[in-house]
Every structure is written in C-alpha cells, then in structure tokens.
C-alpha cells in the first residue's frame, strides 16, 4: 500500500496520500470512537471491579484491596437478595408482557384504517417522553388519594363502600401495598417499552414477503396455521432481539423504581440498580455499591452473547 513511491512521472500534484489510503483511513476514523469508549467505559469498568474488592467509601477515597468481603457482605443482606429476585421478576414479567402486547399492536397497525397516523402517534408517545417525566405522570395517577383508577373503581361501586369487591377503604394505595406497588412498576415498564417493541415487531412483520403468505394461502393454510408456521418463525430472530434489548433496559433501569417507590414499601420493589444507588451513592459505600452493580454483569454478558448469536444467525439467512 505504499503509495507515493510510484507516483513520479505522473506530473500531477495530487499524489496518493492518506486521503486515498483506505487502510489508514479506516483506522484513523474509528480510533476516536474506540479511544473515547475505552477511556471512559473500559476504564470505569475496570475501576468498578477494583472498587468491588476494596473498602473505598466517599468519606475515605483511598483504594485498599480487601478481597471478596464485599460480596460476602452484600449476599448476607436480605434486602440484596430481595432486590436480586425483584430484578429478575420485573425484567421477565414486563418483557413477556411487552412482547405479547406488542405483537397484538403491531398486527393491528399492519392493517389499514382511518386515523392510523394519530393512533400510531399516541401509541408511540410513552417512548418519546423522558422516562423520569413519564414516570412522574404515573406517580400522580397512582396517588394514594387522588388516583383516577380508584375514582373509577369507586364510581362503579367496586371500592369504598361496605361490602365492595375491593374493600371498604376509599383508596387502594397502589404504591403503598407490596403486590400493587410491584404491579404498578411493571405497568410503567410495559407502558414505557411497548412502543419500541411494537416498532421492532412492525419491522419484522413488514419484512415477511407477501408472496410467502399468499403461497401458503393458496396451499390451503388457515390464518392460524400461517401465523404459526410462517409469521412466527420468520419474525423470531428480530423478536428475540427486541426481547433481549428490553431485558437489558429493564435490568439496568433505575429511573422507574427510583421515581415511583424508591424501592418501597419495605424494599418490596427494590431492584439491584436502585440498591446500588442507595448503597453506593446515598450511603457512600462505593465498594459495596460497585459489588452490587457487578452482580448484573454476568447476566448482561450472557444476554449479549445470545444477541450476537441471533444477529449472526439472521445475517446468514
């Protein structure tokens, strides 16, 4: 690739230099991205690992390696174990709901109907608003006294009168009761991630060649059979990717829980990310915080490997 050597005799000033050397250009152009990410993400990641085996706190920021004591300590903590369980429960429940519901929405949006533009706009709204602000909206909707859901239930006599189905109290206290609080957080996650999943499902459905479905119809396959044998297998790779993406989002998100319940009541909605924050930043125990956050990493790495497999596989097709 040494270029300039043979240029003599051409008599032109424009000789081949870096501007024409794709090998050098390729490296030069990608280097800033790699450096930026390596410096900030790579470095921080290593630091997180170091912290997790040290006794660093915000009050005493010297790094002393103490081994795996932090991991033993956090595992010993019942809140941590609860948070671990909750994290998985939140992530999987909300993602399964998201995938099922998004398939329904996407199938409906594939059809032509009046007002489709508006419907799409409204369905996509949750994803476009900053997540903390959308969650604030929900916080007000789940208010302990002024929740519109409670008002509707009262209106239909299901709540707030003696002998009512949901009890005689005026309110359900959505965020104050463990089961309901958990359901509320899941609802907000579903609300937030449904648009993205819908859009991915739409792309998946749109990529199925029409001929294929028509051929199956000519072959006498019922709509049910066409869904089962053509639509689902063909959209499986892209849906899996949507699922894994959603898992990562919910595994690592702390905004919803932080804004809605701060992990309460009595840690029943605590997740690893919020627990990391409360321990590491608000509690100042950087070492334990780092150790808690790292618990997620093997799971995320597993998901990443799965995703790569999917991408590779679907590229071959």
């Amino acid at each position, binding site marked *: 690739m040494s270029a300039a050597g043979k240029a003599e*005799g051409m008599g032109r000033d424009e000789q*081949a230099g870096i501007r024409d050397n794709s090998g050098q250009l390729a490296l030069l152009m990608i280097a800033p991205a790699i450096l930026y990410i390596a410096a900030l993400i790579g470095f921080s990641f290593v630091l997180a690992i170091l912290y997790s085996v040290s006794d660093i706190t915000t009050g005493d920021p010297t790094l002393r390696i103490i081994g795996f004591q932090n991991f033993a300590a956090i595992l010993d903590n019942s809140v941590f174990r609860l948070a671990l369980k909750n994290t998985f429960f939140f992530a999987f429940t909300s993602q399964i709901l998201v995938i099922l519901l998004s398939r329904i929405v996407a199938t409906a949006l594939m059809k032509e109907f009046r007002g489709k533009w508006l419907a799409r706009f409204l369905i996509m709204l949750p994803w476009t608003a900053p997540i903390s602000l959308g969650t604030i909206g929900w916080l007000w909707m789940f208010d302990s006294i002024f929740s519109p859901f409670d008002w509707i239930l009262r209106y239909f006599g299901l709540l707030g009168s003696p002998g009512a189905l949901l009890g005689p109290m005026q309110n359900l206290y959505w965020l104050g009761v463990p089961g309901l609080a958990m359901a509320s957080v899941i609802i907000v996650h579903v609300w937030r991630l449904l648009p993205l999943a819908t859009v991915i499902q739409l792309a998946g459905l749109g990529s199925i060649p029409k001929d294929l479905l028509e051929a199956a119809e000519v072959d006498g396959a019922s709509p049910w059979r066409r869904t089962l044998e053509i639509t689902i297998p063909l959209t499986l790779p892209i849906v899996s990717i949507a699922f894994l993406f959603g898992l990562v989002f919910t595994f690592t998100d702390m905004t919803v829980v932080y804004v809605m319940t701060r992990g309460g009541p009595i840690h029943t909605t605590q997740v690893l990310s919020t627990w990391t924050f409360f321990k590491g930043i608000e509690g100042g125990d950087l070492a334990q915080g780092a150790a808690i956050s790292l618990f997620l990493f093997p799971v995320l790495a597993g998901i990443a490997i799965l995703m790569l497999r999917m991408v590779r596989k679907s590229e071959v097709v």
Partner: protein
Amino acid sequence: MARVEVRGISKLFGEVRAVDNVDLETVEGEFLVLLGPSGCGKTTLLRMIAGIEEPTAGDILIEEQVVTNLPPRTRNIAMVFQSYALYPHMTVYRNIAFPLRTRGVDKATIKEKVEWAAGMFGIERLLDRKPRQLSGGERQRVALARAMVREPSVFLLDEPLSNLDAILRASAREELRQFQKRVGVTTIYVTHDQVEAMGLGDRIVVMRKGKIRQVGTPMEIYHWPADTFVATFVGSPPMNLLGVGDILTGFRPETFLPAELMTGVGDVVTYPFEVTWTEYLGAERLVYGNVGETSHARHVVSRLPGSVTLAIDTGKTYSFAVPRRDLRFFDRESGLRTDRGPA
C-alpha cells in the same frame, strides 16, 4: 501508442484469484471488450484499471506511465458503472458538471462543456431533472455524458446496457458504437453478453477464472476459438463438439446442414443424424439430435436458415454434413485448438 497496458496483474480476494497474472494492451482508439461469465475477473480487471481496486501484483500503465498505485482521480479515465451511479441528490446538469467542478474548471467553461456533452447524447431538455425522474435509457445517456464531459484518455464501461430492456439495448448498442467511433477514445467495455461483445468490439478479450483465454477480433473469436471454452461460450447455440479418441471435433451449428444441400462447398464430412427435437424460430430452425458412433459427446445442434423448407421429423435419422474447411479440432485433455484431426 498503447493507451492502457496491463503487465502481469493479479488480484487475490482472500484465497480466490480473481485475476491471475494477466497481460493486456489496448490499441489507440479501439473498442476493446472484456467478455466472460460472471466471476471470471473481467470487472475486477476493469476496476483495477480505474484505480478503484488495488492489484495484488503487477503494473498498470496509462499513456505509458505507471499508475498502479495512483488514486483514480489522477488517471484521467472515465467510467460508467452498471448502475450508472448517478448522484441522486444532484440535477442532471450538476451530475454532468461534477467531474469538471472537482477539477476547478471555471463556471463558463463548465456550462459550455455540459451543454456540448448533453447535446452529444440528446439530453439537453433533461438538465434540470433529478436522476429518479429519468427512464433507464435516459440515465444511461446522462452517465455517458458525465463520462465524456472531461474528454478522458480512456473510457471504461462496466455492463452499461444490462439495465435496459431488450429493445432499448439494441438501439443503445448502435448509438454507443457510433459515438465511440466519432470521438475515437480508447474504450474498454465489460460484458457477459457475447452478442454485445461481437456487435461492439474491435477486439474481444475472452476471460475465464481470472485468466485470458483468447484475444482477437470477433471474426477470429467466432471462427477460430482458441479452446473449447471460447468455442462454447461464444455463439448461440454454441459450437458442436464431437468426441473421437483424444481429439474433439468442433463445428458451428449453421455449418451442419442436410447432406443434399451441400453442393459446391468442396470436401464434406457426412454424419448420420438422429433427430430428437426441432424448434421453429421463424428466421431459422434449430434441430437437435445425436450423431452416430462416437463414444462421448454426441449431442449436436443444426441451425437451418428459414429458407430451408425441407421436412425434418423427430425420431428419424437423416444424413447431415459439414464442409471439411469448417471443422475445428481441440485437444481433449487441455481443450486447446490443434491442427491435428482425429486419427
């Protein structure tokens, strides 16, 4: 003076030898066609001449100067891609002006030249349009005008007619040929279509698997193919090949006619021809069948002019003949043409 010269050039893509030690030289002002099946390396060769692809070994000379490692913009070549590669965000005028603007030509000259090039291809009225508003034929003319506008020393064309429909392709071929004769620029043209190659080329370079199999005029290629590959790749239907011993005997379908028509053509070789199928194509009739006793390769085709109204039925055997001077012989092992007939 050779406008383009290629010396021992090779290109490897990983393990694959796309172009394998090729030597080639153009004659000033000629129309040279690179012909071969897809994957034979013809496009790679053209792209190396253009400077888009870097050769693994060998040298390229344009106007007797080594340009092997020079970027395309310094080579004073023009190229028309199969897709025409018109800049979709620019008008036709700006597309044609583009190569001039990158060279810093002044505005007045650009206007004059663009109008000259557009006039040459009859696209003056399209200058304000965007490429997507043009038909296939119009796009092709714009691409040609853009290639011509800066009067390159070499003109490279990569299957520029393959995106046109059949009728347009025939007229575009004729126009292209006349235009090239008029401007007299050395032209290298890549195609996999042997009809196009025969119709356009002053000389044809037949390639296969990265190597040149034969270079010659259309006449030479057709009548004196260098090997069995050229013999069967050029011509439709291809040359018939009959196997006798270690020699293959070849003859063109149109030379293989009923024996009773063979008068005044000198010495002939007669074969018993068992007809298995006939196709009536209007101007001609194709008769398929098998020939006698040979051990291998006995399926042959005869191409009868429409003027021959002789009844020929499938299932029957007729006496067909070839003038001896139209027979070609090939070595069975190497495929190369030899002067030696079968023993």
